[in-house]
Each structure stands twice: as C-alpha cells, then as structure tokens.
C-alpha cells in the first residue's frame, strides 16, 4: 500500500469511529462544544502518530510476550506529555476536557493501531497511518462537536451564530444535543449516512 493510501483510507473509507466503531466514549463525551472537540482531535492525532513512530522504531526488539505492556507504556507516556502541555499552555481547554485527556490511554484506536499496524510496518508508513487515523477521529469529533454546539447552544467556538431575531420569533436551542444521548443519535445518523453512501455493509 502506498503512503498516500495509508493516510487517506482511515479518514473516510475505514474511519476508526464510523466504520470500526472505536473511541465512541470520548467522541460522545467531549463534543458538546467545538473547541474541546478540536483540541481532543489534535491531541489524539499527536498521540497516535508518535506512539506509532516509537513502536515502529523499536518493533524488532520488542519481546513478543510483553509487547502489550511496552505499547501501553509508550501510549501512557505520550498521553501524560500531551496532558502536561495542555495544562501549561491551554489551561481552559484542559479544564474542560478534564479526565478525558488521561482517558486517551484507554482509547482503543491508539492501541489498535499499534497492534495492528506499527508492530509490523516501517516508520514512515506508521507515521502516515497514525496521522490518517487521527484525522479520521478528529473529523468525526469536529462534525459532531460543530453540530452540537450550533444547534444545542446556537454558537460556534463560543461566538453566537444563530441570530437573535430567530429566537424572537420562537426558535429554541435543542437541549438534547447538549446531553450525551444527543451525541449518540448524531453519531448513529452519521454512521447510517456514511454506509448508505459507500454501500459498505457488514454481513453477519
């Protein structure tokens, strides 16, 4: 597979959230506003990419019997690094994301990519695989985060988008979208939309 294909495929065709249905927990939890969604998307992308690179670099020396432990150590280190940087330089967002940055450790996409790809591939393809999967994850988060903030509170990135006159004639923000079930419905609709376009169904 060419690097380009490795990069592009997980963004739409083999998206980690809508096709593989991984990383749902954080996709529902942090997406009530656009800004934390973007930061979370970038954080996960950085973490997958660097974990992929590191594991791929040391793949020949990793003892098979403890490979999961090694992978988790690498992931945990990356996650703590990102968490520390957010706390120092993006304090407000880090407060909003609270525990979910730490919980990236348990995000199955990250471990999945290490096990499924980085362990058997060279450094460059692993880098692109990490980037692609990160973008695929970020894309869905941004779509859901944007829709939830826009229709749930009438804003985008904290700026009022839906004009006041619309509220005056009776428009009401959809409170359901601010809650986790609202995100769940949105995600379900996205999965449906994507599969009905790509005609890719899972047979039993």
């Amino acid at each position, binding site marked *: 597979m060419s690097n380009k294909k490795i990069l592009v495929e997980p963004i739409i065709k083999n998206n980690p959230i809508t096709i593989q249905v991984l990383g749902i927990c954080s996709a529902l939890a942090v997406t009530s506003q656009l800004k934390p969604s973007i930061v979370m998307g970038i954080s996960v992308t950085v973490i997958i990419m660097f974990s992929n690179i590191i594991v791929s670099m040391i793949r020949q020396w*990793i003892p098979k019997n403890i490979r999961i432990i090694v992978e988790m150590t690498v992931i945990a280190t990356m996650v703590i690094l990102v968490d520390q940087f957010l706390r120092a330089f993006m304090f407000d967002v880090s407060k909003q994301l609270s525990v979910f940055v730490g919980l990236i450790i348990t995000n199955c996409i990250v471990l999945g990519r290490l096990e499924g790809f980085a362990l058997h591939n060279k450094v460059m393809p692993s880098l692109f695989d990490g980037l692609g999967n990160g973008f695929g994850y970020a894309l869905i988060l941004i779509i859901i985060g944007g829709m939830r903030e826009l229709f749930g509170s009438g804003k985008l990135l904290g700026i009022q988008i839906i004009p006041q006159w619309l509220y005056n004639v009776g428009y009401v923000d959809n409170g359901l979208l601010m809650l986790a079930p609202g995100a769940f419905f949105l995600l379900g609709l996205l999965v449906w939309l994507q599969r009905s376009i790509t005609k890719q169904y899972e047979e039993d």
Partner: protein
Amino acid sequence: MQQNKYYSFIFISIITILCGGLLSITSMVLHPKQELNEIVEMKKNILKAVGIFNNQTKMSQNEILDSFDKSIESMIVNFNGQNVKLPAGVTIDNINPELEEQKNKEQQYLPIYILKKNEDFEAYCIPIFGKGLWSTIYGYLALEKDLETIKGVTFYKQGETPGLGADIATERFTKNFQGKKIFDENGNLISVKIIKGKVGESTPNHIHKVDGISGATKTCDGVNDFIIKDLKKYEQFLLKNRDKS
C-alpha cells in the same frame, strides 16, 4: 533471544527508565507555568465569586493578579471566629484548606477573602470543597456584607461528568445561588440546598433552595453536603460579625 525472560526484563527496564526520565524532565520544565495558571485561576474565581469578574470579562493573567491585589484583602480566622496570625514564613497562598481540615478544629487556619470598597467591607469569600460524584470539587462562596445572603458561587476545579455534573461550573448554574440566604428566621445556619427541578416563588422555603441540574443529582448532593460543612467552620465568625452589622 527475544524469548529470553532476562531480555524481556532488561528491555522493559530500559523503556521504563527512558519514559520516566522524559516525563520527569517535562514535568520539571512545565511545572512553574502550570502553578502560575492554578494561582491565577484561584484568584480569578475569588474575583468571580465576589462579582467583579465574569465570563465576559477579558483580562490577562497579570491584570487578574493586579486587580486581585488592589481589591481583595485576606485574613485568617480560627474556629472561634477570632483573627489569627500565620506563623512566620507562611502566606495565605500557602494555606491549603484541604490539609487544614485534617487538623484539630482548634488548630485550623481558615482563610477569608474580603472585597473592600473605600474602606467598607463589601463581600466575604470563603473556599469550599468536597466530594462530588467522581472527584473533589473546589470552589468559592461569597457572602454579601450582611453575612447572610449569597453573593456568588464558583467552582473552578472538578472532574465531574462533562455535560452533566461538570455543568456546576457554568454561570447558568452558579447564578442560581445569588440572593439565597444561609440563615433561617431564627438565626440558625442552615445553608442552602440544591433541589431537583426549578425553584419558584411558590416553592416552600425558596430562599434557601437552588435549581438543580437534571442528570447531576449525585454531584449536587455532594455540593449540598460540602457547602454546609464549610459554612459550619466559619459559623462563629459569621455569627459574631452579623451582630455587629
């Protein structure tokens, strides 16, 4: 060679040392910046609780520190409501209310932040903290100068469920506390209580009740518990100074 158990042991040791070293260095380098963020956040929240700062206010970190130094005076009282001096070398910024709580009642240092306007006391602010559902919640509670009416409440550090319990930190929720009373008609400290649903004029005792957040009952129960717990510590101070005014 890869199957050798000594090899595995050495390999994971090297990885652990490398990762641990990297994390220690990062933590050392970033720690001063993180600490400054925390202090600014704390002072910002005291300013918020006493009402001279809100989410719309745009201030740089230095402006916040300046404004705090100008308008807030702090003091320490003990359990009996008397003024106490801190031992040499300790400042009010070093007082950790959480550690104080583990001491004997008589030895606790209780910080109070006072908003002053032209030599008049305008508001009193005390730290509040306690367990929510998942995490320890930290905040401030400010009282009007009558020491009875709540001027404002903020929560600045918490790890509650985002979108549900974490909403206690939003202005939408905290503004419900404003104007509520912590003493009943007989002068007993009864605090306020967050209840399910909306509080209206017809709700019995509505002056002591606060609108809840649906889906965040456990978090709100925690908040109820620790607000009364922390107010109790200051009860003597409140009673003494209420009589004066």
